[in-house]
Every structure is written in C-alpha cells, then in structure tokens.
C-alpha cells in the first residue's frame, strides 16, 4: 500500500546511498539564492526549492525531496523550523535510523 513508504532521515554523508529516492533532511539554511539553497546537515547540501518554499537564512529547515544523481536535492516539501533546533539531536536520529533500519526504513 502507499502507506508503507518511508522518507528516511539523512545527512550529507548518506546522499550517495539514496540517489533517486525520497529522503528527509534536517539542517540549517546557510545560503538562499532564489530557488536554490545551501543547507548544512553535517556537511553541505545543495537544494533546489519549489515555489512554496519560504525559508530564512540561519533557520533550521526540514526538507523532503528526491536525491539527484549529482547529490543535490530536488525539494518537494519544506518546513521552516526556526531557531532552537538541536542539530546534534537531529544527526543522532539519522545515525539511529541507519543503525536500526527495520524501525525506520522500507527498503524497496
């Protein structure tokens, strides 16, 4: 069923493992240039935003999108998380996601 689909949380280091797949990235907005953004998620990620994205530099953001072959992300949904995001916590969740995949990821 379409319910059994996951968008695993990743950081920069995992991009290459998910080319062509939908992923979730939580990071800090480093730079915004029109519909392109540079995000810091334990490494630098390039994101191509859609029209509905309303991000602010230095704020946290949760992006859901598809990983392009060049390891940039085509963003389908973005949520501004404001300040106060604990990035160590978010990165820990990414590590845990991959350490205990059966709890988090549908492999297909």
């Amino acid at each position, binding site marked *: *069923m*379409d*319910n*059994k*689909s*996951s*968008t*695993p*949380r990743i950081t920069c280091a995992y991009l290459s493992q998910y080319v062509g797949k939908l992923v*979730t990235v*939580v990071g800090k907005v480093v730079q915004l240039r029109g519909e392109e953004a540079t995000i810091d998620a334990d490494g630098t990620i390039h994101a191509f935003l859609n029209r509905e994205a309303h991000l602010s530099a230095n704020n*946290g953001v*949760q992006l859901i999108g598809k990983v392009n072959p060049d390891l940039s992300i085509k963003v389908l*949904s973005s*949520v501004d*998380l*404001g300040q*106060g*995001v*604990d990035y*160590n*916590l*978010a*990165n*820990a*969740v990414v*590590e*845990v*996601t991959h*350490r*205990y995949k*059966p*709890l*988090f*990821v*549908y492999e297909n």
Partner: protein
Amino acid sequence: MAGYGGYGGGDGGGFMSGSQQGGSQAGGSKYADESLRPVTIKQLLDWEETFPGAELAIDGHPVTQVTIVGQVRSVKPQPTNITYRIDDGTGIIDVKKWVDSEAQGGEDGGSGAGAIAPDAFVRVWGRLKTLGGKKHVSANFIRQIEDFNEVNYHLLEATYVHLFFTKGAPGSGGATKQEGGGGDNMFVDQGYGAGGGDVAMGGAGPGGGNSAMQARLATCSRNAQIMCNFINNSPGGTEGVNLLVIAQGTRMSVRDITNAADELLGQGIIYTTQDDETWAILDY
C-alpha cells in the same frame, strides 16, 4: 491519567463505562497491564494481525496504547470523526479523532482538533485498530508540537524502548545504577573506586585492565575516559557495547562518542566487535 481518561472518548463514546467495575474481566485489559509505547509508524504497519482481534505486540511485549509523532499530510472531517493522515518519515497511517458533536465547543483545549492544519507536526496518543484489513490509530488525544526537537526526541525514545525490550536495560545485571539515571551514577563506585566520583583520575584504581592500559587511558581526553569506564562497567563481555547504549548511559553526543572511540582505538584500549559502532575493552 491519560491512560484511563481515554476510555471515555476512545471507541465511539461511552461504551467502556460499564466494564470499568471489573465485571467484564473477559475484556482482557486489567489496568496494571496498560502501557503507552512510543513507536514509529513503520512499527505499527509492520505488525501482522495473525487472527482478527489478536492483541497488538511489538518486540514481544503486548502494547495497549501507542504514541506517535509525525506530520499531518491531510485533514478530512467526517460526520463522526476527523481523519488525519500522519507521516513520520517511516510510514503513513490514518489517525481518527472521534468527535462528539455535542461537545464541539466545550472540548478540553488540549485536543484543539479544529486548529490542526496540513504540514503541522503533531503528537498522537491512541490505540491501533484494524478495520477491514486496514490499520489506523484511534486517537484519544492529538496535540500540535511546539518544539521541533520533540519530533527527534520521540524517534530516539522509540528506538530506546525497542532496544530495551529486545536487549535489556542499559547496564543492567551489574552493580551499575538504573537506566537513564544520569551518567554520573555509573562511575561512582565501580572500577575506579579509590577516590569516589572523580573519573578523571584514570591512573589509579583497580578498575578493569592492566596498569599499562591505565597509563594510556590517563593520557586520553575526558570523553574517552568516560566512554572507557562505561564500557568497562557494562555487561557487554566479548560482544561489546553499542554506541547507542553508550549515548544513553553517558549522555555524550554521537559525535563525541565517535571521536572518543577513535582515540581509544588508536591507543589500543578498545576494539570493534560486531560492527563499527560496537566496542569492547582490549584486555590481554
């Protein structure tokens, strides 16, 4: 309170009130067995109902109520309930919040059902139900999340509880103190007992390992010493202790632990066992 209060609104309103006197013990749920498990949606979806009415069990333990945290993908108001599709990144599930039309205006502010919009993050308390082969969560309570860190916290908590049930409490079976009770407890008596709580004096003390190892440990950073002590005091044996367990017990961040591990590996104090994130003390 949340556990018992849920009976009122949970299954179509009012039905459960009679059984609370314990008359219908056949209902099967004694209050002592009620539990509230933090889970990922994938854990719920993966549960196979072996026969209709089978009791939900995850990691071998029966589960009555669950709590999930996710993003709202859609909101569909219906005559008797509001159906939300919730996505937490591990799976998607329908959550039905029953609406008592008479109590519309008077609902305790907590549920705030009318104010939840798509893309908001919410926390749900409820029970897993199956209807015609399809699963959904019948929600007693649904609340918008104010601090995004709660989303990540929930995922870690769900993992912790999963590990608790599959591998046992951290540091259990030994003289070390109980789970989550603050990393400091672990180091007060065992191992480096000579001076009491001060871990930094890794040089002295009859703790695990020989004196050469102590000398090398003393040259390491404080984080490395804390991590080494923790592994020493854990019942990992030759299997080793995993990064997550260390994180729980010492409250160090994943990055700190990884750096400390590199230090200790370089010094030949620990070695990896099952995988790159499980270590044991190198004792020879």
